[in-house]
């Protein structure tokens, strides 16, 4: 029935996706002008801070290469310390980008159009940060090519029955596909930048990267087919990536890791943390570039907060399941793990996790909080911290006291652990600001298509909402 198909768009009538009077010209101008004009002082400051972080990352890695992973706090029994925690944390953050760009596209959620470009950029930079950690955790990153099936003088092949090897394939595929998907969506917008360029340099550079795109209908058709197919491929891909990451744990017999709930629970956690990071970034970027506020409205922010609330509950359900299964397994080691999480030496991490991920996000039930940018910003940071703590709890608490009491130990991160971790955040910030400087931050073509479909699609167009007969170009949003 037609009514069911139209439902989301009727809803959008009540919650406009655009603010202010819009038309094709304005949407294009507002977004493509940002990279072409002078940037606010805050950009320079933030980029500078990020640049310091990125420089510090290079130094941290150089120091690590000189001295080896003995600089870190990892030991026996806790061989997976900060590196794997940070790896899972960053990869999880990346997943919201793919969720927004691919899954919400397939679900025909029109509100994704304003945030997909931004979130995909976040994905790419987060995966870059993620990849560093396992690479350097190998201890000898210069032979990391052994992880790939490249014929070599040892006549050895990777061990394809190991989830760690699956990880290599999953993460590298994920990165590659994310870049392709992102660039695919970017090409028509780079052509817009080329056509509107104010200087020769802008025209040439954007023109080169636009690959000669000329807005042909036949090209658009193939572009759309490929875009939809890439979304269809990315959707199972993103689920597979974090499922495989969780199998790194679940395939072992370590107490607390050998749990069948891990794959869906990890995926939900990834989306939870990813949406938190999108909010952490979008809120200041909206202030820094007020033009974005016309397209990333308070409704978008509200929906992102709701997704965060929902996935937060899935994650919390995961925690409850872990506790229940720990008890119900009847295995003393699993039961001990639950008690050890509650009252063991790392109890502050566990209870802080429950506070950050379980209790504090509940204020998002209140519409007032969801419309308070400062509150949302703080909550999103708390969730980011909470999701980091979750990985700390899973990795360190399980490893530090497993079966034999004689093999128990403690793990304390060192200065070098923190140095490397905080530096990757700096690198991430720098990359986000580089992105904002040179690339249209929102998907212009997709926004215009959406605007046409929602507010301008009279004349009995198939997708036009029946109640929206607003032929005037300034009819958008009110």
């Amino acid at each position: 029935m037609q009514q069911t198909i139209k439902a989301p768009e009727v809803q959008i009538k009540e919650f406009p996706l655009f603010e202010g009077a819009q038309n094709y010209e304005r949407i294009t101008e507002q977004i493509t002008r940002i990279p072409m004009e002078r940037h606010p002082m805050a950009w320079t400051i933030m980029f500078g801070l990020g640049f310091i972080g990125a420089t510090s990352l290079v130094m941290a890695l150089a120091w690590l290469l000189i001295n080896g992973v003995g600089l870190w706090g990892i030991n026996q029994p806790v061989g997976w310390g900060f590196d794997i925690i940070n790896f899972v944390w960053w990869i999880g953050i990346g997943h919201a980008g793919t969720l927004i760009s691919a899954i919400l596209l397939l679900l025909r959620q029109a509100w994704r159009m304003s945030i997909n470009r931004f979130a995909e950029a976040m994905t790419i930079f987060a995966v870059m940060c993620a990849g560093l950690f396992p690479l350097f955790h190998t201890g000898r990153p210069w032979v990391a090519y052994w992880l790939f099936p490249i014929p070599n003088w040892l006549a050895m092949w990777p061990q394809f029955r190991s989830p760690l090897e699956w990880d290599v394939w999953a993460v590298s595929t994920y990165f590659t596909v994310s870049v392709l998907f992102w660039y695919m969506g970017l090409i028509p917008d780079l052509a817009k930048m080329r056509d509107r360029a104010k200087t020769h340099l802008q025209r040439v550079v954007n023109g080169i990267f636009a690959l000669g795109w000329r807005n042909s209908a036949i090209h658009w058709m193939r572009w759309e087919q490929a875009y939809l197919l890439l979304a269809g491929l990315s959707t199972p891909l993103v689920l597979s990536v974090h499922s495989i990451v969780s199998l790194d744990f679940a395939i072992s017999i370590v107490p607390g890791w050998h749990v069948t709930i891990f794959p869906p629970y990890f995926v939900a956690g990834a989306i939870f943390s990813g949406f938190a990071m999108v909010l952490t970034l979008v809120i200041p970027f909206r202030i820094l570039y007020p033009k974005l506020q016309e397209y990333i409205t308070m409704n978008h922010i509200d929906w992102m907060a709701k997704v965060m609330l929902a996935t937060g509950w899935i994650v919390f359900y995961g925690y409850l399941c872990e506790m229940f299964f720990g008890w119900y397994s009847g295995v003393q080691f699993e039961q001990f793990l639950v008690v050890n999480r509650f009252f063991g030496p790392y109890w502050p991490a566990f209870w802080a996790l429950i506070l950050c991920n379980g209790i504090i996000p509940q204020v998002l039930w209140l519409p007032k909080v969801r419309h308070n940018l400062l509150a949302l910003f703080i909550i999103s940071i708390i969730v980011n911290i909470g999701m980091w703590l979750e990985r700390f709890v899973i990795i360190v608490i399980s490893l530090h006291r497993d079966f034999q009491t004689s093999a128990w130990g403690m793990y304390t991160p060192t200065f070098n652990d923190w140095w490397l971790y905080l530096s990757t955040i700096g690198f991430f910030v720098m990359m986000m600001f580089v992105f904002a400087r040179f690339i249209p931050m929102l998907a212009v073509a997709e926004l215009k298509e959406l605007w046409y479909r929602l507010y301008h699609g009279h004349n009995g167009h198939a997708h036009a909402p029946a109640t929206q007969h607003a032929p005037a170009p300034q009819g958008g949003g009110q």
Partner: protein
Amino acid sequence: MAHADTTPKLYGLMAEFETPEQLLEAARRTRDAGYRHFDCYTPFPIHGLTAAMGVKEAKVPWTVFICGLLGAIGAFTLQVWTSVVDYPLNIGGRDLLSWPYFVPITFEGMVLAAAFGAFFGTHIYNRMLSYYHPVFNVPQFVRASTDRFFVCIESKDPKFNRDETYRFLQSLNPLSVVEVPE
């Protein structure tokens, strides 16, 4: 041939429209008038436009499908060949051909190859990286990426006749009709 010797070589005639609806109508009528070598230019994808133009094509989906299939077969074969034939390793007493363990990488290989197929397939069929194209010679064509909608009937169309085609395009009520020099 239709054009006289004195005329410069012509790529085609281009008509400019203000709204997607007008363009859809124009595309349909161009098609109905018997033209086959023409293209539309729009700032964003318009649903139903290629249908109105009479263009039907599934090259990209087929490319993606075949690439995905080859990727899956390739990744699975790679794992079987290395783990069973070339360097058999006993991992925890599992069968050498422990195929369930090969599923994740088979899947990733499928996705990777299919994504490459989608990206490069699209751009190869679109002849991307050809930075020069006659349509860029039209001054108002820059607006094709902002807010104008164009139809261009190409001179290689057997039905193309400079004057008749010009009159035909004028009958579609465009904002303008211009020549596109080669």
